[in-house]
């Protein structure tokens, strides 16, 4: 039976919330749904409502199911919500599963161009049928428009149903298609088609809807890869090398676009940068090592498989003490795994990457704003400690849009290159220069750049070398260097971003990393309502700062929340702090979707009850 005219029966039935709702849009990928999703995100954002969008897309270009989840929450909880107020079901292939996911009292917006199989009907939700396809066929001529515009029509219906500010949406279209009037008009037309249809057939707005508020002032809506690219731009990167791989590709795409805009030499019009699409990840890191050795700030971005391939060269950079920055936008492993799904599965691999005794500096941004900050800091750290620095982002942080504080920049900031001896200093000094000698027992030895002065010449090698930089196979000489490398790594503990800590005087705490942040914070609030008080710490760098030790020492039970199977962060804490193992429990969610508070709450509750 087809549902045409529906007056919401369960008005307010559990869904009568304002500026607190979760929408899920189910589509077929490659049909242009993303621009419509983006339109809605921007609209909520401009209305001042904290919002997040989670793109659950397949590793495929066209024709498979894809979902987009939008959560607006006045309280600022923007982690993934698992119960949906509104399901926009536009993919007949996934109707059953999509409709099943709607919360009781929620709504299904579906394409009423074709009948709906009665088995899909639930009594506890409302069905709002909009003949999207039919309307598009009637109103648009080209086949392309007829598919593409369906998403805009749907958006129009949502604007009406959720009381999204129509002018805001229209303005967004106007801005987006500035100069492309024809496109703008057809989009606006499609928007109104859906809008009017909804107003006509349903009494709008629905009980659960949105209102303008002031929750996003001084905030921006941005994805982590773009933010990280900005960080590279501002840190002064001139050489970048990469090999395409989901989900890191958009980082280099963004960096290339930024360079085209901001890195043209005003005088010559030529490029103040060089971005190389390498033949593989080994080459990408090799290029970065060569450029850094030669004094340029260089970066590569990749994902798990690339990290595995870079292993040998990471060891070379570590042992030759060459600064390099690697951004690992993590995806679900092992092997090729699920390229478009999120996971925090490379923590251990990165911490100890490469054979032999190696330890690396890791940065764990928790949101796009930190992707920018940490990207900038990563280059300073790499040069100060003359070693590889890896920034671990992931699909959720890197590719989804987050509302974060506006990025700020101190124009007096200058890069910290760490100890480097320049030509004058070399020419004037009496004693000969030796690359790895530490007169003042300082852990980092000054380096010199090629092309500066004969007096600074040295031979970098991945083979056994002594303090002078000479080849050695003599135990004592070899030990002097590798032992210093261990001390050097330890010394970085005070230089990496400190943990983010919230103490409430509890003996139990939740500890997490990266993009789990919003879900875990929300979980803490939810558990508080159940009378469970919890402290909070989010790890932001490795080696671990002293504050991490202190926090661990002050708690009897610490739940380590992370998105991998093998409790990798917990493992790193066990190995690299003095915390007794049994104090650390695990909350592991690693199915590939962004974390939600509910998953954390459930796990903590059951473990506490046990």
């Amino acid at each position: 039976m087809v549902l045409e005219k529906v007056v919401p029966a369960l008005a307010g039935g559990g869904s009568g919330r304002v500026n607190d709702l979760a929408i899920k849009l189910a589509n077929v990928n490659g049909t242009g749904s993303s621009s419509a999703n983006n339109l809605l995100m921007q609209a909520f954002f401009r209305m001042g409502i904290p919002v997040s969008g989670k793109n659950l897309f397949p590793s495929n270009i066209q024709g498979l199911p894809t979902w987009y989840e939008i959560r607006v929450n006045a309280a600022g909880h923007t982690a993934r919500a698992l119960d949906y107020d509104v399901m926009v079901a536009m993919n007949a292939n996934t109707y059953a599963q999509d409709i099943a996911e709607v919360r009781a009292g929620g709504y299904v917006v579906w394409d009423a161009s074709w009948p709906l199989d009665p088995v899909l009907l639930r009594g506890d939700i409302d069905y709002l049928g909009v003949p999207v396809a039919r309307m598009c066929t009637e109103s648009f001529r080209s086949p392309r428009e007829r598919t593409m515009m369906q998403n805009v029509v749907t958006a129009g219906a949502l604007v009406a149903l959720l009381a999204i500010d129509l002018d805001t949406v229209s303005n967004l279209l106007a801005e987006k298609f500035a100069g492309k009037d024809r496109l703008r008009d057809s989009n606006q037309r499609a928007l109104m088609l859906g809008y009017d249809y909804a107003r006509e057939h349903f009494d709008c707005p629905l009980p659960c809807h949105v209102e303008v508020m002031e929750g996003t002032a001084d905030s921006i809506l941005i994805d982590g890869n773009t933010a990280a690219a900005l960080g590279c731009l501002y840190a002064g990167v001139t050489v970048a090398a990469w090999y395409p791989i989901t989900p890191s590709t958009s980082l280099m795409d963004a960096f290339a676009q930024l360079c085209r805009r901001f890195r043209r030499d005003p005088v010559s019009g030529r490029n103040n940068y060089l971005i190389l699409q390498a033949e593989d990840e080994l080459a990408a890191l090799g290029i970065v090592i060569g450029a850094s050795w030669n004094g340029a700030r260089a970066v590569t971005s990749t994902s798990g498989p690339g990290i595995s391939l870079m292993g040998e060269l990471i060891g070379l950079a570590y042992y030759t003490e060459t600064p390099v920055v690697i951004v690992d936008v993590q995806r679900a492993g092992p092997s090729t795994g699920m390229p478009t799904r999120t996971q925090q599965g490379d923590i251990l691999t990165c911490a100890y990457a490469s054979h032999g005794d190696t330890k690396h500096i890791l940065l764990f941004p928790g949101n796009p704003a930190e992707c920018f900050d940490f990207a900038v800091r990563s280059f300073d750290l790499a040069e100060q400690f003359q070693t590889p620095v890896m920034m671990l982002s992931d699909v959720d942080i890197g590719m989804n849009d987050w509302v974060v504080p506006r990025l700020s920049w101190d124009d007096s900031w200058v890069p910290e290159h760490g100890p480097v001896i320049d030509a004058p200093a070399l020419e004037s000094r009496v004693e000969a220069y030796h690359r790895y000698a530490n007169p003042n027992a300082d852990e980092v030895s000054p380096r010199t750049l090629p092309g500066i002065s004969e007096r600074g010449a040295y031979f970098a090698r991945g083979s056994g070398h002594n303090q002078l930089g000479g080849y050695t196979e003599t135990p004592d000489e070899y030990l002097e260097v590798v032992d210093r490398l261990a001390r050097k790594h330890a010394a970085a503990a005070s230089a990496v971003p400190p943990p983010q800590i919230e103490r409430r005087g509890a003996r139990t705490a939740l500890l997490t990393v990266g993009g789990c942040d919003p879900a875990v914070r929300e979980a803490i609030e939810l558990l508080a309502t159940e009378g469970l008080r919890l402290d909070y710490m989010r790890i932001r760098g490795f080696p671990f700062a002293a504050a991490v030790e202190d926090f661990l020492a002050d708690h009897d039970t610490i739940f380590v929340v992370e998105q991998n199977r093998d409790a990798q962060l917990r493992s790193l804490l066990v190995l690299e702090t003095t915390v007794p193992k049994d104090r650390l429990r695990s909350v592991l969610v690693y199915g590939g979707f962004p974390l939600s508070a509910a998953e954390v709450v459930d796990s903590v509750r059951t473990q506490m009850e046990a």
Partner: protein
Amino acid sequence: MASIDKPPIVHPGTRRNSLGLTIRDYEGSMSTLCAGCGHDSVTAAIVHALWEMDTQPHMIAKLSGIGCSAKTTAYFARGAHGFNTVHGRMATIATGAAAANRDLLYIGISGDGDSLSIGLGHLAHLIRRNVRMVYIIENNGVYGLTKGQFSPSADVGSTTKRGDPNNTPPIDPMSLGLSLGATFLARGFSGDKQQLVPIIKAAASHRGLALIDVISPCVTFNDHEGSTKSYLFTRQHDSTATEADFVPVQAEIVASVPPEGVLSVTMHDGSVLRVRSVPSDYDPTDREAVAEHLRQARAAGDVVTGLLYIDETSADLHEMHDTVSQPLRDIPFAQLCPGSEVLAGFGAR
């Protein structure tokens, strides 16, 4: 890569180049290679060429992978920075170095295993990118440092010391280079310094990637009868394609029409290269003809040497990417950072 410092005995009488440097100033630490190793002769040729070219030692950057050949970088230009990287990846690190500073003279030393086996993919893409550098393959047909296994340049039928024949067809870096669009290809023989020195000079002045394949016999594992990379075999089968004569920038060039069969090429740095074809119809600018010549020679079992192919017209890495003339690593930070105002604009409502 062991290195012993060489006593800097300076004979007062030694000749000095225009920088006032003696040939000794272009040497490095004492070689730890086997006595008679071809690689040491290559080192000698490099030292000679650098000295004659009046190269400022600190403006050289030496790179290599891993292998006996890779050790060579320690044995010349002690005044230059060197990077002994890992096996097969030197091309990538050289590319990055060249990207950061286009002003240095990059000399990469590799082996036939380092370049044609584990590093083949990188070499191929280095050629595509036409990175400006001198890339020397010290080609001995074996893996020296790991004690004599066949490398991909070993000819079919060539035997190990123990007498086992190689059964897999070889890769010829010159033919490979031609098919990949290399812009400078030359083959030398470590036993013929005469020929090698001008080739190295020309390579150093080339606009892009200069690939030099030097047959450099491994006296310990591949200089026996049955080897096609031995001193004897190479001497007996050496067939010279061209003779190169290098005229540095400084020297004023007598504007004379080059004699019949002599090609005159002006290199990107203004120096002039004169190439005399030995088979008078040999044309080092005709990719086809060169490929044909190489294949016929190989069929006849000959080792063609000389400057084999040159194209001074193709863009190098930096030209392809239209980078500024200044080394990227020297651009002041102020010119790289767009500043706070620009940043404030991103992602705002």
